[in-house]
């Protein structure tokens, strides 16, 4: 076998990457020639060994892979109970709808009467207070003030002539 028949360096690489990339003649030579076969195996061995050594460098995995959360349907309430809740809600809505006009009419009359009652009570209480403080009529009350203010015996005689002096 001539030296020129040996596979070249580029063909050697191609043989390692993809043997089918070589011509049939070169493939046959590679299989038959111990020198070329050895070279090819050596390169392939180096690359494979590099992969194995890299694998040995990797530290072991310390966590476990978790699956995504399963989409589990929550157990629902029984249909009878759902129906009861639904009916109750519907009834409450109906009552509310009916009651709204009633509440709209009632306040104007009811609150007016209540307001008048409270006003009347307030006036009455004011009058009672005044009566308690001033039991005599108002005109007398003014007179009484003047009487207290002016202690004049002549004046008193004029009011109650001939009265005895009990002081």
């Amino acid at each position, binding site marked *: 076998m001539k030296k020129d028949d040996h596979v070249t360096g580029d063909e050697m690489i*191609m043989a*390692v990457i993809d043997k089918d990339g070589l011509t049939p003649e070169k493939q046959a030579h590679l299989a038959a020639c111990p020198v070329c076969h050895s070279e090819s195996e050596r390169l392939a061995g180096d690359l494979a060994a590099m992969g194995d050594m890299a694998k040995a460098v990797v*530290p072991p*995995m310390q*966590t476990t892979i978790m699956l995504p959360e399963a989409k589990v349907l929550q157990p629902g309430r029984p249909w009878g109970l759902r129906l009861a809740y639904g009916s109750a809600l519907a009834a409450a809505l109906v009552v509310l709808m009916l009651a709204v006009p009633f509440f709209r009419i009632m306040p104007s009359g009811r609150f007016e009467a209540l307001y008048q009652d409270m006003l009347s009570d307030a006036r009455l209480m004011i009058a009672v207070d005044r009566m308690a403080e001033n039991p005599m009529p108002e005109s007398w009350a003014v007179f009484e003030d003047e009487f207290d203010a002016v202690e004049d015996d002549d004046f008193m005689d004029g009011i109650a002539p001939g009265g005895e002096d009990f002081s």
Partner: protein
Amino acid sequence: MSDTAGQAKAVALPDLVACVEQARSGDRHAMNELICMFREDIYRMVYYRTGNRMDAEDLTQEIFLKVFDNLKGLKDTGMFRPWLYRVAVNRVNDYHRRKKFLSFFIPASEREDGPEMEDMQHTNESVLDQVIKKEFWREVSAFMHKLSKLEREVFQLRFMDHLGIAEISAVLNRGESTVKTHLYRAVKKFQTEEHLIGLIRGEEP
């Protein structure tokens, strides 16, 4: 390498399709089955891209939630695996966009870049193993930064997440020839990473 090389946990495709169909109809047992099938793969895929255990766990959770929320939108249930990875890739890209945006407001000294080293310190491991792991990851990160965004994505999906060419094409919504081209470029750059290859072969401490 065949396209089916990386089928998750050697689940037969008809079983997977049936499981996806059941999950679409809301079967929680089927959803749990899908989580068991792909949880580790998606978590690892996210960790490679974030370098942070807690972020990777949170994102994995979010990805599965999103997948189950949108499962009814998946037309071809046979394409569940690439679709799942597509959701994951998009979610991780969102994460990086958000992180980049937040980095404007966070001082560089407070940022967390790369994998958290305490995360890597598994129990029952020798100090040497831990050092090698750190060194390996540093080299991988440096290599990834030399790749373009698409080269990095196809390289990771092919050789770290063990997806086939057709699946990567579906995940990234690119043609298979585009995927192969970018994969070719990425592998060519990988060949120049002598220190990384030395670590892989156990030739360098």
